[in-house]
């Protein structure tokens, strides 16, 4: 096994992990602020992927596809929050779970009605085709691009959350919802924004994934399972833990493909069990 191959797999893992991080970051913001396990997150990823695919192929513009996917998923997220989830704040977990599973199923069926069950693929735009020479080996340009975009978006959101007044309100709300509203802040508006943001991130992850894995109507469900593993690994209640855990899962998955390709998925769940056994609060979680 060459060093070049290992480095390529590592970078593959980082690219994949960056997508997981986008998914899990949104999930944990929604969980932290709204206290809702968003089981529709995979469906929002799915919608992002198909909207990006549709816009990219019919308008022949990948660059319009990306923002269109983000907006479409965020808009669906706003509808889910305002007309669905909002009625169930404070009710039993089971009801929230049922509602969100139901919504996910409906959305998946809508995607099938519109685009059918046949998987499709898309090539990256010309400028992102081909590979760059890393010295030790070649690496696909598009993977570098997804890594870069994911990181820029995550850093941007980090900046908003940690350095702005709006971010301070979000951090306050993550800890004490009731107190935030007693100070005159419209917490429900904050919930809608947070849900829209998480949904938009899922849409972005879906759109970025299309040139890598194409579109298929099961991609949302597959992604949802991994995203929840990532959230648990990162630690519930720690939004940045999700980023670290996303990268870790991506790297473990692609590195293990070098040595034990058939076990790479099992390995992720094994890792989750191990971490939970020794560190129940997750990687960066507290308490």
């Amino acid at each position, binding site marked *: 096994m060459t060093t070049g191959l290992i480095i390529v797999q590592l970078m593959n893992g980082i690219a994949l992990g960056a997508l997981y991080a986008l998914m899990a970051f949104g999930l944990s913001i929604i969980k932290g602020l709204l206290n809702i396990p968003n089981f529709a997150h995979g469906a929002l990823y799915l919608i992002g992927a198909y909207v990006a695919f549709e816009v990219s192929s019919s308008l022949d513009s990948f660059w319009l596809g990306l923002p269109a996917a983000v907006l479409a998923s965020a808009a669906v997220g706003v509808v889910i929050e305002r007309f669905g989830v909002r009625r169930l704040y404070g009710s039993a977990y089971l009801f929230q779970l049922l509602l969100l599973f139901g919504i996910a199923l409906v959305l998946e069926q809508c995607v099938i009605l519109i685009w059918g069950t046949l998987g499709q693929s898309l090539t990256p735009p010309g400028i992102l085709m081909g590979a760059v020479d890393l010295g030790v080996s070649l690496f696909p340009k598009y993977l570098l691009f997804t890594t870069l975009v994911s990181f820029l978006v995550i850093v941007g959101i980090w900046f908003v959350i940690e350095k702005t007044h709006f971010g301070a309100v979000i*951090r306050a709300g993550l*800890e004490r919802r*009731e*107190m935030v509203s007693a100070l*005159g802040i419209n917490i429900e508006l904050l919930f809608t924004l947070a849900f829209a943001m998480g949904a938009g991130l899922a849409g972005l992850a879906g759109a970025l994934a299309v040139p890598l894995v194409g579109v298929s109507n099961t991609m949302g469900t597959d992604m949802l399972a991994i995203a929840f593993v990532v959230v648990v690994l990162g630690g519930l209640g720690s939004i940045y833990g999700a980023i670290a855990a996303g990268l870790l899962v991506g790297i473990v998955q692609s590195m293990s493909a070098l040595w034990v390709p058939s076990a790479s998925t099992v390995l992720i769940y094994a890792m989750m069990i191990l971490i939970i056994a020794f560190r129940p609060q997750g990687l960066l979680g507290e308490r």
Partner: protein
Amino acid sequence: MLLTVEDIQTYYGNSHVLHGVDLEVGAGEVVALVGRNGAGKTTTLRSIMGLTPPRSGSVRFKDQAIAGEKPHRIARRGIAYVPESREPFSLLTVEENLTIATNPRSPWQLDQVWQWFPALKEIRDRKGGHLSGGQQQMMVIGRGLLTGPELLLLDEPSQGLAPVIVETVVEMLKDLRKSNLSVLLVEQSIGVALDLADRIYVLNEGRVALHARSEEIREDPSRLDAYLGLSAT
């Protein structure tokens, strides 16, 4: 009257906690609410704030019925709530805690808080979770005042604090009396309550058992004995 609470009945689930509480707070008045642990003092404040809305009865603020409104609407009408558990935002700095909901029209701005509590200014960049009880209390009172309220709901501000800190807080509250702020103060320490308040309500098992002017109680503190037990004096 700035605030009029009439016959409120408040429940936690099926447990009936307030059995018809009536009270009033006038503009610029400081009113104390005392009573044993579990008497319903905190629940009264939460009912006014809309956090545990009363099932029946009325709450009027500046002549408008506010019972049933969302807490953030009630807050924006000019009521600030400083809870018993203080609820500091532990991941926010002291300054972020103070300015989280500032109102540019508030008569009190950040500088005023630094003046009242110079100790806070020195630790303005420290995280709210890393403060002593006294520092937390000063911070959350400041946080409430920066929203520019006309009525401050203050739940047991002296609880668990060293006497010197209690004194700082009491001095600050006395200073506030010069402005036209009204305060509804829940207080375990009868000394502090009598020192600050114009009138006193005694709550017992979810009902107002006694209502008197502070002078009357000062003249005959034994009137409180039946409701407060040994801690009264």
